[in-house]
């Protein structure tokens, strides 16, 4: 049972051992289709992605910018449900038992299914990141905790010092630092503020701190990798997936990820 929880920790430790930064890649399950998502997940790993973040589509994703919102809408048009996503993870695990998977979504889709986290765990998911769940609230209070799943919390530039220590105390896996004030895919990246905040967070916790939101180019990735333990890349991938959705020619995306992966370990 404990194996699944440590899959994320194992990956983080082994990266640490060889002094590599983590590359976390996001995509929305079911956009353009669940089959493509499965293909992309394996493709991402081959291109150098260390951790997969699978978006669970929701009708009202308030933290997402227009690119990821539209992907949620497309996935919902395909009727992608949480149960479909568990099956997707199971299928992925048939070929890949090492790459950690995080489900990122909104509270209501998890709340609608009291068995959600139990099923997430048995399907081979390692962690959840629930965007509209404040870091200090325990999933147990909402009746859906599963001790085998890490719960990843966000820390924003606006998070107070008091909350930072509360969130660090409740977190497992890693801390996800939101690099900007804005929705996903915005372009207000402020590296010096991010550096100051990440340094502060690292004084409060032994967990690694990954940076995400607004990272587009290999240069963005390089700059943020210097001040964090890893980076998360989302909107630009989702946009590329959408552009390729009719041809399903994903090689360009894998090349891009490969470039990012090289940049953060430059």
């Amino acid at each position: 049972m404990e194996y699944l929880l440590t899959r994320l920790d194992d990956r983080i430790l082994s990266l640490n051992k060889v002094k590599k930064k983590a590359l976390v890649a996001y995509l929305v399950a079911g956009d353009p289709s669940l089959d493509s998502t499965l293909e992309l997940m394996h493709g991402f790993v081959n291109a150098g992605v260390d951790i997969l973040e699978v978006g669970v589509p929701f009708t009202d994703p308030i933290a997402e910018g227009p690119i990821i919102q539209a992907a949620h809408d497309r996935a919902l048009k395909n009727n992608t449900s949480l149960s479909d996503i568990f099956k997707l993870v199971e299928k992925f695990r048939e070929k890949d038992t090492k790459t950690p998977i995080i489900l990122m979504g909104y509270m209501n889709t998890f709340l609608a299914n009291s068995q959600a986290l139990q099923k997430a765990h048995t399907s081979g998911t390692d962690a959840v990141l629930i965007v509209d769940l404040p870091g200090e609230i325990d999933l147990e209070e909402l009746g859906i905790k599963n001790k085998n799943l890490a719960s990843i919390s966000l820390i924003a530039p606006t998070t107070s010092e008091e909350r930072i220590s509360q969130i660090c105390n409740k977190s497992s896996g890693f801390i996800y630092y939101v690099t900007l004030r804005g929705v996903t895919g915005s372009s207000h990246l402020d590296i010096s503020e991010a550096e100051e905040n990440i340094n502060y967070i690292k004084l409060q916790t032994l967990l690694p701190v990954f940076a995400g939101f607004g990272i587009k180019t290999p240069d963005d990735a390089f700059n943020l990798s210097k001040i964090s333990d890893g980076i998360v890349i989302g909107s630009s991938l989702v946009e590329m997936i959408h552009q390729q959705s009719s041809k399903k020619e994903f090689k360009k995306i894998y090349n891009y990820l490969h470039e990012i992966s090289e940049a953060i370990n430059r």
Partner: protein
Amino acid sequence: MDNLTDLPNSDGFFGDYGGKFVPETLMHALKELDETYAKLKNNPKFIEEIDQDLVQFVGRPSPLYFAKRLTDHYSGPQIWLKREDLNHTGAHKINNTVGQILLAKAMGKKRIIAETGAGQHGVATATVAARLGLECHIYMGAADVKRQSLNVYRIKLLGAQVHAVDSGTATLKDALNEAMRDWVTNIEDTYYIIGSVTGPHPYPMIVRDFNAIVGRELRKQSKEQFKQYPHAIVACVGGGSNAMGIFYPFLEESNVALIGVEAAGSGLMSGKHAAPLNDGEPGILHGAKSYLMQDKNGQVVDTHSISAGLDYPGVGPEHSNLKDSGRAKYIAVDDEEVLSSFHLVTKLEGIMPALETAHAFAALEHIAKNYKSNQHLVINVSGRGDKDINTVATMDGISLD
């Protein structure tokens, strides 16, 4: 059990409902708002400033009017109308914006944003922003921009910018999503004036408190005009701010029946409606846990109502708690009933209610028979119907071109 009047608790919960389910970036701003409000709400100067605005700018108190012909029509209770439609800008919404703009001012925010459905809250927000010379942005679903074009123009005349929201269902919930995204992005200098008793804590409490002037006036007016508290108070419920404002000062008066009226759209059985308290399940949307129209996968479903202001899949968390505790009852009336009620009230009383408000009137068809002629029933006339003339004409098959 806690006294209902003492809710929410410090975490923002009304029983099981409410809370703060928002992206982390907003948590600090909510705390800041909570602290500012806690500090100011009992400050005599702040209270005096709001009271003065309510009297001189809004035109309060709003009258309590005896609807004689409506009373005769139903031969049930004596029907009284709390005339929020007579407020400046034409609805109860101004009670809240007059208060919140002073919070924005106290917090030094320079930029105001709001969502709107029927446009009444957009107008009320643009009005108070204009008065203080603050930059103002109103988010409105693209579908609502069309059906409430008169209010869109009013908002523009007041100097605010209207952003039509195309995403999702292009109605009120999507306008709220977009306003929240704006707020996340411009958190430092922006104040978000939420227009209903919805959203994360402390909004449901703040919006209720600013609207509670309606219920407080009614306590006084009912004693003066018919020597007792009403036997029943009826109000329409979308997010539920006009209802919460008139209900709240009566929560501890257990002899006063509180009746909320939701939008049954094409009928509760059709599934095409906006009545989460009648036909929804608890869930989380826009920062709070409350009854919600959703499918088995937790996806929010499309709503339908003739009234843009009630066309919302959620409802304020305090209403959810009042429903579960049994303190208030929630019924629903469909579009057809609403339209015929709109015509009835217009002809009998010379008062043209907003389509939202017409839901409360339509409830009379169902409940008037439960009351005797010596009992008093108050309807909260939350807004006037000028904005809805085009919709009514279309429904009646009449072209105004």
